[in-house]
């Protein structure tokens, strides 16, 4: 029953504009904007599906055809996507991409590899420019992100490679590392070569003179079939090759993260300055954005909840009518509930693609349990003597259900639906991770940019919506639950 709805949601991207994806960090979003604006201004309408969950979602989306273009890093291709395959040389990597039906541009110019950084002033004072220079400064305090402490190419192999003798090495949260650096408690931290903080904190990136870190050159990936669908796209994308060096990328990152400009505006400024292109940036007003997000969120909740009601009530009835089967149904639905929500959101991507369809499928499964359970409990709770009275009257099974048992179970069923709806509203915010939009979008952006105001722009409406849904169902209960039943419980108070 739910399948046609999901397919309907999945279809629109097969024709429409070129789908440009980006990952959930600022640099990727800026580059996604650059690509989308460039294509659009060159007469190849493109849509940017920003800040999707992660590498796997983007790569799978590209291969499956839900995405047409996105910017990836050579290091990620080698270490993650083609991990364990012989793709060390550029030619081998290009061949592996071709086998997957993917084409790649030449590098955009910058290398966003892991790097070590110091305050520029302090580095100058000590005369340090390269990682090798650290060897003679064994008094320095190092603070590394936990990830860097553990990675294959992280601290253990780095210190071995360069023979670094330092013992004052702490693993800590990245934000704290910046603060420690600024305060002078730490002297050397790990960072990305295009980190926005390089500019804002005036950091010196130490040269990796022994070439320990694998390169993370950025390049544009696109589906091979895009060249047939949009002839000439290769040449357009090629205009970005070699145009963005590390300082430039780091500056763009800083304009978003430190100065609060939008990714779209920063991308437009780049295209104007570098390629002389005038792109139109559609800056959405806050009210308009809230309206759009509300619409998207309501769609996700509405469709998934409707499907869960349509399936959940009959399942609950079935469970109540056939007790043995019922235990099975409740068990299965209960197990679904124990699957971590994030997993459930990703599980459907291979079948339903990124976006609304997968999100709705996940929400549907998650909201099923309270409805099935509410229906089952309501029916199982009908007192035996009333069931028998109905039988003794000579009512058929279905008439008993319709005239006696379901009306008596109504309150429990509604309570189940209400719980499901409130869960649904909250959980739908996760849909943004796989590109379904809704209130999760500003929440994700707010987390990424460490911007509480933006975060609240998603969190507050989501909370308000949950309260409204709750109130709505209380109103419905007053309308739908027979007065006689309400009298009964009032009598007990």
């Amino acid at each position, binding site marked *: 029953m739910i399948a046609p709805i999901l397919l309907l949601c999945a279809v629109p991207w097969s024709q429409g504009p070129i789908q440009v994806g980006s990952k959930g960090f600022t640099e990727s979003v800026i580059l996604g904007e650059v690509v989308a604006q460039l294509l659009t201004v060159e007469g190849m309408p493109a849509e940017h599906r920003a800040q999707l969950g992660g590498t796997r979602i983007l790569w799978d989306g590209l291969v499956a055809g839900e995405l047409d273009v996105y910017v990836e890093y050579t290091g990620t291709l080698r270490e993650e996507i083609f991990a364990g395959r012989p793709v060390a040389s550029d030619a081998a990597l290009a061949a592996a991409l071709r086998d997957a039906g993917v084409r790649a541009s030449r590098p955009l110019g910058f290398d966003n590899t892991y790097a070590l950084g110091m305050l520029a002033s302090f580095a100058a004072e000590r005369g340090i420019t390269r990682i090798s220079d650290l060897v003679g400064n064994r008094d320095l305090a190092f603070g590394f992100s936990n990830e860097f402490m553990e990675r294959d190419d992280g601290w253990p192999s780095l210190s071995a490679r360069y023979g670094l003798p330092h013992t004052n090495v702490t693993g800590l949260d990245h934000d704290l590392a910046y603060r420690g650096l600024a305060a002078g408690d730490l002297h050397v931290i790990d960072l990305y070569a295009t980190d926005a903080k390089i500019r804002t904190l005036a950091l010196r990136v130490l040269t990796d003179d022994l070439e320990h870190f694998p390169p993370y050159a950025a390049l544009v990936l696109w589906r091979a079939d895009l060249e047939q669908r949009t002839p000439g796209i290769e040449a357009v994308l090629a205009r970005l090759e070699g145009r963005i060096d590390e300082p430039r990328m780091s500056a763009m990152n800083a304009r978003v993260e430190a100065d609060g400009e939008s990714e779209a505006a920063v991308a437009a400024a780049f295209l104007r300055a570098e390629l002389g292109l005038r792109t139109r940036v559609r800056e959405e007003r806050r009210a308009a954005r809230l309206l759009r997000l509300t619409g998207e969120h309501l769609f996700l909740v509405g469709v998934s909840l409707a499907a869960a009601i349509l399936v959940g009530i009959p399942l609950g009835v079935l469970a109540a009518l056939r007790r043995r089967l019922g235990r099975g149904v409740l068990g299965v639905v209960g197990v679904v509930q124990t699957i971590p929500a994030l997993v459930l959101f990703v599980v459907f991507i291979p079948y339903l693609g990124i976006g609304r369809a997968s999100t709705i499928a996940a929400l549907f499964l998650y909201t099923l349990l309270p409805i099935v359970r509410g229906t089952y409990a309501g029916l199982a709770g009908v007192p035996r*003597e*009333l069931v*028998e*009275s*109905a*039988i*003794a*009257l*000579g*009512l*058929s099974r279905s*008439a008993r259900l319709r*005239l*006696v048992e379901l*009306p*008596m179970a*109504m309150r429990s069923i509604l309570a189940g639906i209400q719980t499901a709806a409130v869960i649904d509203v909250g959980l739908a915010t996760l849909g943004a991770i796989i590109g379904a939009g809704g209130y999760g979008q500003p929440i994700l952006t707010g987390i990424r940019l460490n911007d509480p105001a933006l975060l609240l722009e998603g969190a507050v409406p989501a909370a308000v919506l949950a309260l409204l849904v709750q109130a709505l169902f209380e109103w419905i209960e007053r309308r739908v639950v*027979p*007065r*006689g*039943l309400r*009298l*009964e419980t009032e*009598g007990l108070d």
Partner: protein
Amino acid sequence: MLELIQVSKRFGATTALEPTSLTFERDATTVLIGPSGCGKSTLLRIAIGLVEPDAGAVRLDGTRLEPSTARALRRRMGYVIQEGGLFPHLTARDNVTLMARHIGRSARDVGTRLEELCALTRFPADGLERFPAELSGGQRQRVGLMRALMLDPDVLLLDEPLGALDPMIRAELQDDLRDVFRERGKTVVLVTHDMGEAAFLGDRVVLFRAGRIVQSGTARELLHSPAEPFVAEFVRAQRSILEDYR
């Protein structure tokens, strides 16, 4: 005529009813009496098909009660339990008329019958729009009775219908029940544990003990010629303490 032919029932290790045969004639009221747990309710529930007997058969005017005939036969029987067993989500009127409307009786016929029943059971017409929770225990019992009588059944089965009522209301309802039972052509089976009630309402009284019939006859017969000591004992225990003060 309602017949129970060698019906028996066990629940796990307990025997609720030994193989028992009973015939209930038209225009007669039979009262089943006996200590609690002796199988009275089980017998009644077997009669209307709520409990399937381990052996034996139930026949109504010759038609055997089985899954294929159950619904049709049940519509010819009315069943009343303690507190009336009313559906709390329906008003008194809807409780009474539910089945008649479900099988498509016209609104006029239903209305006429409802008026008759209100008169018969002396239920106030303004109480029809109330929900069970808004009615007194006695009123609930009258509604339960009306519901059972709505389709003018041949058989009326009542399981301790007055058990939950206080003595004044109880006496009043006993009078009304007797009027109802005198309606033409009815076969009435009533379960009680009160010997006075049995004597007042029953043409015949059947005394049970541990799932088997001990004695069957008029109340007078049970009183004056008990078949075994247990009968005399049961009757004596039922006698009002007040009588000792005479």
